[in-house]
């Protein structure tokens, strides 16, 4: 089914390219080349896939517990801000101290920001969708302030408002030497992302806590009578979700930009929802979906340059994937009504 939705979306994209008078095959060829056509292009695709994977896990871990985390975007930015602040605040610290400190600060900050939505749901019954949407925009404006004329604003910065660069100790190293892939930006964040995928898998399917979270997501009342308090798990899982998103933000700072700037990583948190849905909230699925969406993003820019097809086509394709997935849920709902057990299709 995920493959069907991607194919349907690509088809819809092709129609749009045709309508606008270009050649879809040329367009898609350019896209493919841009995403995977050379070692450099592959590393560029992976650079985008890293934060997408982490943000996708953020959405998925909440989904598995029955919560819809629209807030990965805001949590990612909070993590980035925390990393940017920590990294710039103690520039003299050696990497062995500063890098973990940066990482932990981002995870805790993102987690705390996420936990607010969990707490409001558990204690006040507030729909987490509303809270996380509102939180996302709150972060954007706080970020404007911090970077334009607030405490994090870099002195004498020109151009885009930004924070001061982080210390050398907070930087994630490039893992592919220039001699092998010249100019590659692929950093050690990719290792952290793979580790996060493993942690996500281990947490959800190999620990008592993960069992409890899944039980709450699939049968909250059964979990409650067995002594698993769903409300506490909601707060906790939103902390974990925020932590993963915060880690994504930290990786963008420490691995790629070495500072925070206005308009930083826009839209990753929303793409993450599509990644989680397409990847069926599973570790491998999310990783593949993140690489796919990263390929769209990276390939899209090349497609625009080489074939003259706007890179925004990628958003159309992505939205269509989501719509087809929604339709898939409908097919399942209809099947259930006809008496097929839902579990048989899950």
């Amino acid at each position, binding site marked *: 089914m995920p493959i069907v939705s991607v194919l349907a979306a690509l088809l819809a994209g092709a129609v749009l390219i045709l309508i606008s008078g270009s050649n879809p095959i040329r367009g898609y060829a350019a896209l493919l080349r841009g995403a995977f056509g050379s070692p450099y292009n592959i590393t560029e695709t992976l650079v985008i896939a890293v934060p997408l994977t982490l943000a996708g896990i953020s959405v998925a871990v909440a989904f598995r517990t029955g919560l819809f985390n629209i807030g990965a975007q805001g949590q990612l930015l909070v993590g980035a801000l925390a990393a940017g602040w920590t990294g710039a605040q103690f520039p003299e610290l050696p990497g062995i101290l500063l890098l973990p400190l940066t990482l932990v600060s981002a995870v805790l900050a993102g987690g705390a920001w996420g936990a607010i939505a969990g707490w*409001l749901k558990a204690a006040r019954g507030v729909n987490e*969708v509303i809270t996380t949407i509102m939180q996302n925009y709150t972060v954007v404006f706080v970020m404007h302030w911090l970077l334009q004329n607030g405490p994090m604003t870099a002195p004498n910065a020109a151009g885009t408002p930004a924070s001061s660069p982080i210390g050398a100790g907070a930087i994630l190293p490039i893992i592919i030497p220039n001699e092998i892939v010249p100019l590659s930006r692929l950093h050690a964040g990719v290792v952290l992302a793979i580790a996060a995928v493993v942690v996500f898998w281990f947490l959800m399917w190999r620990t008592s806590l993960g069992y409890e979270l899944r039980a709450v997501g699939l049968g909250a009342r059964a979990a409650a009578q067995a002594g698993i308090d769903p409300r506490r798990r909601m707060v906790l899982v939103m902390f974990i979700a925020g932590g993963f998103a915060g880690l994504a933000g930290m990786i963008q700072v420490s691995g790629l930009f070495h500072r925070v700037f206005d308009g930083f990583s826009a839209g990753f948190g929303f793409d993450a929802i599509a990644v989680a849905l397409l990847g069926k909230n599973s570790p491998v699925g999310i990783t593949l979906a993140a690489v796919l969406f990263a390929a769209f993003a990276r390939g899209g820019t090349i497609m625009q340059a080489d074939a003259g097809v706007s890179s925004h086509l990628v958003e159309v394709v*992505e*939205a269509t994937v989501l719509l087809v997935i929604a*339709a898939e849920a409908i097919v399942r709902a209809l099947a259930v009504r006809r008496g097929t057990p839902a579990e048989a299709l899950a």
Partner: protein
Amino acid sequence: MELLIGAGVIAATLRLATPIAFAALGGVITERSGVTNIALEGCMLFGAFFGILAADKTGSAPLAVLIGLLAGTVLAAVHAVASVTWRADQIVTGMALNILALGVTSYLNYEIYGSGVPSGVPLLPALNLDFLAGVPFVGGVIGHQNVLVWLALVLVIVLQLYMFRTVAGLRLRAVGEHPRAADTVGIDVRRTRYWAVLASGGLAALGGVYLTVADTGSFTDGLTNGRGFIGLAAMIFGRWTPVGALVASLIFGYGDALSVSLQGVSIGDLRIPVQLLSTIPYLLTILAVAGFVGRSRPPAADGVPYESEGH
């Protein structure tokens, strides 16, 4: 003082509140019927782009309004089919439509207006109330507002009356609160919800049309920049009523106006962090939904697909 409550700031408040109010009105209609539509942002973006496109291609501003409105309605129709007929997850569909709208408008903008919307596109005029010219303050505030600002104000009153003073409004509210009760007395739940979702798309699109065909005369990718979501916030903070939504939009618009007028102003040594003013809508909304500032309660069946009984 002039910076805080001068005629200039208040006039700007009205201007900035207008697109928010349109989206909020759309939100009120659809959520009162029991359908959540977070695709309002996308509908607004559709209205903005197709509005300016129509203004450019037809040379007629009124026609631009109509086409922009239709474009938002079409996008909302997808949401209606998915959420009412197919009972899909309304949040997922809404998210998808927002991304779709961003993609389609940006794509077409690149393909059609790679170098920007040409200048000289016909725009909607302001209503010049010259007789107010001499009146202090009032003349400055409402003397030269765009027709769409007035339309928004009129629509607030019309919709308030519709919702609470007509038979159709009574039925709409019943459907959003207790669809089964409405169904058992012969009200068509599905049809009511369809119309409400379509109307919400049209209203949000008007907000988008205002941004391009009345305000700027140009289009940039993602131009609406979250105003549709502020509209949802205004709807919640305004407790799901048209007049409340307008008041909330004005409060939010005033915050925006202040953040412009107070730009670079200092009190003593402290530069006013104007950007933080813009967080007020979102923080107020969270506090309102959580019951810390009054209690803002959504319609009981909001976001819940309805399935009629029958075996």
